[in-house]
């Protein structure tokens, strides 16, 4: 097996988001909040969304963990502002497919700078780090849909 390059993992953009996470903190007027933790490694995120008329107005998070998990969540939140719920779902699914090595997903321009995380897919034990924020997003969308129905 070819040895994956560290440089594909620790890109400057990822390290920069790790050091200066965007949208970190408590959100006012939260519509849905999901706590997700990986008990194996201790990565943790509490994702908060404010949703209005089928659109995510604002997304914030509180969390701790490795550079990959925290940078992925930070980058994700920057793409969620003003995003429709349907597009948010597509974003999460597309990112998840990219992490599992789908080359088409990695080409999808909707992922924008999240494509910097593509290299993580070469490091199988770190994929779950990159996905924790997106798992929280998918869970949040499901929870919101259920609450909307009832």
């Amino acid at each position, binding site marked *: 097996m070819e*040895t*994956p390059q*560290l440089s594909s*993992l*620790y890109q400057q953009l990822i*390290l920069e988001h790790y*050091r200066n996470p965007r949208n970190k903190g408590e959100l006012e007027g939260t519509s849905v909040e999901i706590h997700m933790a990986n008990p*194996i*490694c*201790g*990565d*943790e995120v509490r994702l908060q969304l404010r949703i209005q008329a089928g659109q995510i107005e604002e997304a914030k998070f509180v969390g*701790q*963990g*490795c*550079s*990959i998990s925290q940078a992925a969540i930070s980058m994700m939140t920057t793409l969620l502002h003003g995003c429709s719920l349907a597009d948010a779902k597509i974003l999460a699914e597309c990112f998840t497919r990219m992490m599992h090595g789908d080359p088409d997903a990695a080409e999808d321009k909707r992922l924008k700078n999240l494509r910097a995380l593509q290299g993580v897919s070469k*490091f199988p*034990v*770190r994929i779950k*780090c990159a996905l924790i924020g997106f798992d929280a997003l998918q869970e949040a969308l499901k929870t919101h849909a259920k609450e909307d129905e009832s």
Partner: protein
Amino acid sequence: MTTATLDPVRIRREFPTLDQSVNGHPLVYLDNAATSQKPRAVLDALGAYYENDNSNVHRGIHELSRRATVAYEESRAKVASWVGATEPAEIVWTRGTTEAINLVSTAWGLNNVREGDEILISVLEHHSNIIPWQLLAQRTGAVIKYIEIDDQGRWVLEDLSDLLTDRTKVVAISHVSNALGTVNPVKEVAAAAHEVGALVLVDGAQGAVHIKVNVQDLGVDCYAFSGHKMCGPTGIGALWARRDLLDSMEPYQGGGEMIHLVEREMSTWAKVPHKFEAGTPNIAGAIGMGAAIDFLSEVGMDAIARHERDLLAYALERVSAVGGVRIYGPESLEEHSALISFTLGDAHPHDIATILDSEGIAVRAGHHCAQLAMKHFGISATARASIYLYNTEDDIDRLAEGLEQVRSIFA
């Protein structure tokens, strides 16, 4: 016991796993506190059992069953003398340390612990020596109390006499911390616990690996340990407990092997240790653990301890010289077992482990199943490099170089 020094380069050749490249670099294995590698003697013992003697124990009348039973019981005797048991019957085979602790917390705990009774453990414990007692407390209404730790990860024992009361039924403590490497003063706490009539169980998962254990000298009632951390196979471990205690305990699981006579309403139990060994046991694992003990005895536990202490001193010096490193655990080598638990600047331990892995260096990163100890220091994780008999100064040099690379990426 030999007084000769140990030659790790010669010993390494006995471990096939160590002879490989990982990510383009010769493997440096420093995750021994998670599990050790296995010497050829152990692999051969497993192979020989399955190739020549495979059969069920204590059942068959035939030759293979006889051979398997002899090898299996000989291993029990080796394990018994390894920890200084009075007789082989004091050794109960288990899947590992975790099952051994659960056996005591269940079979002894449910019949001896009542509402309002107290269970004393320490915040340094591995989850396997916390959760079984929390489950027991939930089922009985007992209360859990904790021995706290200081800023070097050592037990705070000034208020031990307040922690131990006439309601204290059991004290469950680790011999050596897997998270910080602290060698705990088990003997002292055991003596105090016995003064209030409490049972003393020791989690020896990291103890029997590095220290020549004598349960009589420690003055404890139960000692739980695993084969896989001391060169043996996974899925096998042992509970040592005083014979009278085992005799007084109810069975843990029901099934074959553990019965004497089975009647429609009520059955009677086999003698110890078989009373606690329901079902076909891990025969190969038991034989492999015996082979591991033979191997370690041949090398000599004194020589291993000296080698580990020297290498730990070298590692502490090299690792602490890397800018931004903070080491958690006792400063004194006497109180510090063969591992280094550390953080490095704002590089998360997972990132440290990934970067080291890319250099072929295996370490552990995370909370090490010791979240209470991590919380004490206000951290969620550390990186942990753990040493065993086959590690060399060269391994430590490679670790230090790897950490410099972590620094350059996270600078």
